[in-house]
């Protein structure tokens, strides 16, 4: 049994070893979203053609999942917590599981789901009413189901994909815009019994509780709504912790508000905190630090360093030493960033410009960020980090609103605005991961709200709000291929191989909070059609 566990862990740790599968949310534990497959490459991608499509039937809120593939079977989720197992070569459904969602549960964080986790013969999914379910990988039958915390009372739920690490399945929680106290939970894969829980906000008498004014720790947010990374050698799990609540008003939570807006490194077996790095002490802009932790090794000053690359919603990327949590570098990736002027050599923010209570202030980027949650990619072939970037701003008005446990706690409102001195829109950029030097920039009329996929075929795949799924040359950013899927892209493309043939899969389906707000600047986007179709492409046989 232990052998099987270790083998599975090793598989997910190394993309190069088993590139035919896509076993975990980010492809591999290091969150690269990179595949070593190169049958489809810069020379033949123009011939890429659709080979099958799959309809999930649920289009509300955007089709936001990352498909997983193991041994020729694909596992996807749709909004409303539906899971499908599909023959990855033909598109034929093998089984489906429709979670029985109670009608009375609100969906403050939308009906979306970002995908499943696989391990020990089970498929794991977090639900809109904050349960975690384990399904038999062969039949889809429910094996266990745990109600993590009452969704009605906590105003929280799960939209992110779980992460299987050895004999445990780890899952985060939404609730960063609610009066809620966040956590990461680990459950034993076999029984569903809880193995450990890490509170993202320390309780009374714990170190860091004094970074919260009075009782504000109880309702301080700190959501863990996306999926972490894992370094098997260090046995550390890395997870981004979101913003403090109330998002835009900090007057009733004086202090640095640990561990919100932090990267935390946890012992994978016990959940014990090994180190934390806070990017934005006392955040008052909703700069969720919940995004992916990309684990790369680079030579710096002649020494190979184990690094962690962490893009933050506020428009900066932090580079840390993932052994110690020490700051290495910080660089700006958004073009319109007005709330801070930069990061100094010690990692401290320079020129913070805090909005004033009840006074509308133009802040760039918008609360949707210099990037939405959709993930970037790292290619070991080019050495570049690729990420979508979005450019628009908000007129923010912080307000002192009472925090009522389990209900929304935003602390103000916002109105979308075009940037004062440049065009609103989006781009997909290639960066040097340590210095942040931009290598190229692919420009888009509308904000890009889909993840990227990097491949050994020197390709970067992503999609746009109009429904174009496209491939760029990883070295130059030149567009090599595009296909219209008919509905905008909010999910994450992957690639895999069955019987020696490489496939590229992408969810197509427009929707979500960020998509829903775009008509404030681009009125025509209100009429962009939603959808719920998975498209799969390959080269002609």
């Amino acid at each position, binding site marked *: 049994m232990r052998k099987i566990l270790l083998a599975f862990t090793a598989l997910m740790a190394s993309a190069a070893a088993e590139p035919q599968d896509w076993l975990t949310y980010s492809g591999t534990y290091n969150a690269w979203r990179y595949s070593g497959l190169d049958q489809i490459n810069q020379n033949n991608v123009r011939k890429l053609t659709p080979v099958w499509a799959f309809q999930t039937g649920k289009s509300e809120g955007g089709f936001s999942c990352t498909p997983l593939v193991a041994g020729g079977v694909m596992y996807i989720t749709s909004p409303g917590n539906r899971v499908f197992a599909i023959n990855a070569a033909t598109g034929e459904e093998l089984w489906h599981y429709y979670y029985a*969602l*109670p*009608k*009375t*549960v*609100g*969906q*403050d*964080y*939308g*009906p979306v789901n970002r995908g499943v986790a696989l391990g020990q013969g089970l498929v794991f999914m977090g639900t809109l009413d904050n349960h975690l379910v384990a399904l038999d990988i062969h039949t889809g*039958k*429910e*094996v*266990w*189901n*745990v*109600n*993590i*915390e*009452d969704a*009605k*009372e*906590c105003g929280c739920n799960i939209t992110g994909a779980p992460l299987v690490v050895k004999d445990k399945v780890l899952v985060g929680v939404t609730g960063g*815009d609610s009066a809620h*106290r966040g956590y990461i*939970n680990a*459950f034993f894969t076999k*029984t*569903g*019994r*809880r193995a450990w*829980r890490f*509170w993202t906000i320390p*309780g009374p008498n714990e170190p860091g509780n004094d970074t919260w004014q009075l009782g504000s720790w*109880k309702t301080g947010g700190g959501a863990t709504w996306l999926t972490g990374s894992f370094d098997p050698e260090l046995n550390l799990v890395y997870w981004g912790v979101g913003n403090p609540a109330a*998002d835009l008003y900090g007057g009733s939570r004086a202090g640095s508000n640990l561990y919100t807006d932090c990267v935390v490194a946890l012992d994978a077996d016990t959940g014990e905190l090994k180190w934390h790095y806070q990017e934005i002490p006392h955040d008052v802009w909703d700069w969720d630090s919940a995004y992916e932790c990309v684990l790369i090794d680079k030579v710096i000053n002649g020494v190979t360093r184990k690094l962690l690359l962490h893009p933050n919603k506020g428009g900066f990327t932090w580079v840390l030493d993932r052994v110690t949590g020490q700051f290495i570098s910080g660089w700006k990736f958004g073009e319109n960033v007005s709330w801070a002027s930069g990061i100094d050599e010690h990692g401290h923010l320079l020129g913070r410009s805090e909005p004033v209570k009840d006074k509308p202030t133009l802040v760039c980027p918008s*609360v949707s960020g210099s990037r939405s949650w959709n993930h970037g990619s790292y290619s070991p072939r080019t050495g570049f980090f690729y990420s979508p970037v979005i450019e628009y701003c908000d*007129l923010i008005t912080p*307000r002192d*609103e009472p925090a009522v*446990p389990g*209900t*929304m706690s*935003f602390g*103000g*409102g*916002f*109105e*979308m605005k075009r940037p004062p001195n440049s065009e609103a829109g989006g781009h997909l950029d290639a960066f040097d991961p340590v210095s942040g030097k931009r290598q190229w920039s692919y420009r888009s009329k509308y904000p890009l709200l889909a993840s990227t996929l990097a491949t050994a075929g020197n390709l970067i795949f992503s999609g746009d709000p109009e429904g174009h799924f496209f491939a760029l040359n990883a070295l130059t950013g030149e567009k090599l291929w595009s296909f219209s899927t008919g509905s905008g892209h909010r999910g994450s493309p992957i690639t895999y191989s069955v019987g020696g043939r490489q496939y590229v899969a992408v969810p197509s389906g427009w929707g*979500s*909070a960020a998509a*829903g*707000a775009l*008509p*404030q600047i681009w009125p025509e986007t*209100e009429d962009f059609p939603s959808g719920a179709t998975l498209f799969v492409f390959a080269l002609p046989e």
Partner: protein
Amino acid sequence: MKHLILLICLNTLHAQSSEGKKVFETSCSVGYCHGVDGRAGKGPRLRDRVWSRSYLYKTIEQGIPGSGMPAWQGKLSEDKIAAVISYIFTISREEPESASKTTPAPSVVLDMPGKALFFDLPRDKNCGVCHRISDAGSPVAPRFKSLRALSAQTLLKQIQSQPVSENNIQVHLQDGEEFCGVKAGDDHDSLRIYDLGGAGPPVLRTIEKKSLLDSKPCPSLNVHADNSKTYSSSELMSIVEFLTSIKTQ
């Protein structure tokens, strides 16, 4: 005179919609919801559309189950709901109909300290991890019958010491695992059991009958004795007070 009345009416309407704008800003356009001036967000665009008054009342008061739209009844006063609807009609158009208002449903569960303790989330073994009241909590235990007839003392005693009296079960699996729990269901080839043995919340497990060595009742399963100790005596009294105040569901 007529003009004066009209003017007063218009002034009242104006005052109502400016109050409504405030309510809208602090309740409807907050977060990622309906956007400033109803320009859309995660919630739909409200401005420049046609709405019926009764639809707005129903939706605002009762919410939309299964969506992000909460029920505002009890959270906003009737005056504030009326004001926010007046405001919405300044940014949209009203569908002609006879203005009508749905009757508010009586609220069953009162907000009181005992309720917060019952569902006290950071407490691992809070009452709500097994008991369901109204539409919150887990259905591990059967729903309460009316508790109003019970004396506070009797109820307190039950909370502190009553063993699990219904559907208790002990299973022994082929892989050697043994545990006690509450039987939740049974079909041709599997048993569904709430496993109460872990450090965290109960786990609803589906046990294949082919992997079952044997099963029998587990009458000594007494989670109350342990779990009630996580509350102080005064906290337990608050919970008792809350439970005895609940009307029959």
